[in-house]
């Protein structure tokens, strides 16, 4: 694939997060502390400022920059969690590697492992993991059955969306929403929702690049 760049992919994510800033914050107001959209928007704005000031040499160092910027600007739990995801994804890439679906799969796995380790969360806890794990499995299955990059991402996005819907049916066991116990049932998890928004943005990006080729 990849005529695109990390910068244009992050641009797609940043504008999707910005467009959904109030939505994410409203979801968080219901079961958390009403800052998820605000924090994510601040973080991805900073990421774009960083990438605009100096385009990274390669994918590996670019992802590291994205991670460190998110860690130092998002705050809350999302900063370390998303930061760790990008940091681990970046570690999977060797210097000079170009993105391809197989590499993307191992980046995806490393990112999900990072989030689970840092947050000590697993599927069913009503967290980001409830979108990430099914999305990863869908990506993997689609790749195995010969899907191209946009098809893999589409499957991942759709699976993440199902994961988001699933979070409405379960009580939270991690994060601030866990204090609500059963009262958190019926509300969708803001973190799982931002995972879905990011995957959707990556899909939009991949489809654009695919068309250009």
């Amino acid at each position, binding site marked *: 694939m990849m005529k695109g760049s990390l910068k244009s992919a992050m641009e797609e994510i940043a504008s999707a997060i910005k467009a959904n800033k109030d939505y994410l914050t409203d979801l968080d107001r219901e079961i958390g*502390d*009403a*800052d998820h959209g605000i924090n994510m928007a601040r973080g991805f704005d900073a990421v774009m400022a960083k990438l605009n000031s100096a385009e990274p040499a390669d994918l590996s160092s670019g992802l590291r920059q994205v991670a460190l910027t998110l860690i130092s600007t998002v*705050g809350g739990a999302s900063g370390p969690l998303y930061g760790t995801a990008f940091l681990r994804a970046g570690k999977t890439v060797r210097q000079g590697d170009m993105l391809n679906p197989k590499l993307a799969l191992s980046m995806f796995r490393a990112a999900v492992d990072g989030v689970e380790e840092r947050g000590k969360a697993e599927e069913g806890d009503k967290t980001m993991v409830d979108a990430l794990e099914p999305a990863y499995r869908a990506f993997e299955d689609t790749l195995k059955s010969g899907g191209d990059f946009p098809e893999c991402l589409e499957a991942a996005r759709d699976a993440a969306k199902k994961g988001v819907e699933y979070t409405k049916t379960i009580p939270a066991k991690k994060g*601030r929403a866990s204090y609500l116990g059963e009262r958190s049932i019926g509300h969708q998890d803001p973190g799982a929702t931002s995972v879905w928004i990011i995957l959707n943005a990556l899909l939009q990006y991949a489809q654009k690049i695919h068309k250009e080729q």
Partner: protein
Amino acid sequence: MKKIINHPADVVDEMLDGMVYAYPQYVRRLEGLNVLTRTKAPTEKVALVSGGGSGHEPAHGGYVGRGMLDAAVAGAVFTSPTPDQIYEAVKAVNGGRGVLLIIKNYTGDVLNFEMAAEMADAEGIRVEKVVVNDDVAVENSTFTSGRRGIAGTLFVHKIAGAKAESGGTLDEVKAVAEKVIANVRSMGMAISPCTVPEAGKPSFVLKENEMEIGMGIHGEPGIQREPIQTADRIADRLLEKIFDDLRLSPGDETAVLINGLGATPLMELFIMNRRVAEVFAGKGIKIVKTYVGNGMTSLEMGGCSISVLKLDDELKQLLGAPAETPAFVQF
């Protein structure tokens, strides 16, 4: 939203500058960072670093000074500070005898402080941490992130700070901090909401005649929403839950903190304290020291919390030791 601010995005930055202008004898700001450190700290002691989201003023910057914290890291409003800022605070105050991080038990705070501790550890700085979880409003079970940390944290700052000031080792300071955590319980309630400047609208809504028992300091839901009652009845409710969790017997010695959440007048806090004193007297439990005031707020939230610390000789002596900070002076 009606607030005396310049711009929502600037509140933390401008507040920190304002604190430094007000108390240059106690605190200074690390250049380019949201970190307040002691103006002059002796380097030959264990350093204490705390922090958390802003909006809880005077916590935590107001407790930086002799006998309490060495540095406080301020995050965005109600949002944990980031690891890079915490790490810079640790580096700035480490005098070689190690650094204790005092963390309130929220997922974000724990994650960010842990990452900072890893960064400091990689630099060869000895860092230990304690996590405060005094709020009995929420269940402490394996199915939640544990109890929240609220105003009882101030007792940890005070007592661990006194231990460090008296020359305690990092292990000793950590041990006494953990002893405080094991013996302090808090419970709060709210009657009116607060508005995070960047969010622009109240974080929850209570009807004119409603209160919420067990409300957290970020507007997290508590145990129950119900019609408001008298101060005496509210004090009874909060104490009941504290006594369920903290075993106290006649003759035991305690310290009590009646903490306002921002919009509740001292008049009402003293009315609460009157009832608390009566209840303790009725049970034969001694209150050695009472603090009443806005020690850990929640912006302009209306409401209060009660914290009770069970004392032993060591805790009592350290609690009574002198301290001099912007928000807490004791001779």
